[in-house]
């Protein structure tokens, strides 16, 4: 155990590559984001870089395009989080039944998760195709017995964001389903046996055993989905490019356009700092709610 006692270089060699990587490509850029956001740095600008105080933050929050993007993200989260969590819960509950072919169904629901978002976005552009030939348009036509008026979902300001929402749920719901399924299977069987002895019905078991037992997993899923909702980018870039009429711009879409298309690095950095604060608040909220729960128990 000689090497165990003396703190030597050996141990540092184990962590050195990882530490070097995290310092250079996570911590440094993170610090840089904060520092740059207080400057006026622009790529290729002849002006010298100088301290700018909170100007960039003041600018982005008085920029209607950014505020609109932030609103879109909030709206997107408000639609996607309950729908995706709800659907994931339904799928997990269905698959958790003792049925034939449950593995096949699980595979099917999970499969889109391995599809790259860029590919999913392109495929769904066709599903949302305008005119009566479009897949969704004809499905809705049949479902409404011919009362549906075919529309161009991705070029309609009212429909573009819901269309992206549907695409995102299709691709991502299997992820939440698997997490909830694992939590479902961790519920002790005795709880249900006891309930059955007491004559509890199915829906009572669901309401008084399953859902309370899933509480932590549900909180986790809701917050992860919310964070993912604020990261929305790929689908927007491919399906709508933020349009029509800025109906689908997002915080990340704005950050990328500001920093690259317009070369305003400092302003882009300020946007990502705002983005990080949102993620941080959501994470702290999650930790707080979960810790709070443990204290109550």
């Amino acid at each position, binding site marked *: 155990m000689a090497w165990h006692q003396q703190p030597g270089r050996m141990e540092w060699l184990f962590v050195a590559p990882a530490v070097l990587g995290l310092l250079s490509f996570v911590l440094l850029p993170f610090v840089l984001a904060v520092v740059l956001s207080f400057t006026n740095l622009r790529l290729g600008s002849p002006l010298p870089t100088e301290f700018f105080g909170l100007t960039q933050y003041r600018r982005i929050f008085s920029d209607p395009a950014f505020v609109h993007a932030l609103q879109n993200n909030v709206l997107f989260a408000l639609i996607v989080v309950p729908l995706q969590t709800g659907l994931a819960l339904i799928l997990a509950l269905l698959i958790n039944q003792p049925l034939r072919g449950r593995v096949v169904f699980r595979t099917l629901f999970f499969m889109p998760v391995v599809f790259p978002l860029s590919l999913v976005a392109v495929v769904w552009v066709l599903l949302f195709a305008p005119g009566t030939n479009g897949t969704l348009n004809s499905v809705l036509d049949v479902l409404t017995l011919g009362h549906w008026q075919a529309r161009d979902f991705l070029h309609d300001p009212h429909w573009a964001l819901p269309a992206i929402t549907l695409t995102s749920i299709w691709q991502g719901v299997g992820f939440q389903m698997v997490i909830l399924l694992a939590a479902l299977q961790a519920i002790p069987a005795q709880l249900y046996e006891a309930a059955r002895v007491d004559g509890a019905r199915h829906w009572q078991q669901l309401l008084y055993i399953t859902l309370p037992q899933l509480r932590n997993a549900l909180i986790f899923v809701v917050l992860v989905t919310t964070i993912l909702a604020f990261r929305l980018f790929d689908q927007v870039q491919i399906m709508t490019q933020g349009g029509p009429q800025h109906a689908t711009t997002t915080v990340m879409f704005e950050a990328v356009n500001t920093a690259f298309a317009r070369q305003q690095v400092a302003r882009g950095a300020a946007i990502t700092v705002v983005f990080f604060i949102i993620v941080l608040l959501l994470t702290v909220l*999650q930790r707080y709610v979960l810790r709070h729960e443990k204290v109550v128990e």
Partner: protein
Amino acid sequence: MSRPRLFTTVLVYVLLFSLALMFIVPIVMMLAGSFKADARVLLEAGSWRGYLPADMGLQNYRDVFERVPFLRYLLNSVFISTTIVVAGLLVNSLAGYALARLRWPGRDSLLLGVIALMIIPLEAIAVPLFYEVTVLGWRDTYLVQIIPFIANAFSIYLFYAFFIDLPEALEEAARIDGAGPWRIFFSIVVPNARPVFATVAILTFLTQWGAFLWPLMVTHSEDVRPLPLGIAAFYTLPPLQWGDIFAFGVMMVIPVLFIFVFFQHWFVKGVATTGIKG
């Protein structure tokens, strides 16, 4: 089977089948469309014919190779993703092991640091990282798509959590036999840690295979661009030919589907692990 029980079972199956339909329709449409003349794909998108393959054979697949450097995109994606997975497994498992087992000054603060870094998503640092790699002169290379993603706080944490729970007896025995930490790690710990290696490998591969935002920011030549940028470019390349696009899509997703079918157990386990960590 009692009446209500039968009713429930039928209801569950009806629900499952209709939901399954929603999941399979886009996939079947892509597959069928990849064997169809481009004009027919759009024309039949709303009818049942959209889900039947047609007589085009592999023409669309041939077109993909003619119209874009598909093979190049594919090789780039394979090279970038596998390099990150292999290097990442080595670097992060060593760090996770050192944090879980070895004793050295600063270990506890490093562990806290790793946990804190886990909550920083790539998006939050994308802009300054872009500036950093510009200063380094790394733009438009493989390097810029690989190096920043090898060390990963979440992977380190997964390894750490696994090693903490691993019984120490075997390592203890080897230590008494005089084996040093490197030998213990590679000949005893690694062979006993296959589940966590599989989980981390799959999660990393999945993320990197789909990477879009970062390559879009830092690359512009087709020599180094991966598949997701390839399909995005292909989709905007006139004339818009859906058959070709779907053929591209099928070829793009086959490698992951292949891995998915064979390692499904680990995929599902890997994702479930991310939930448990919360």
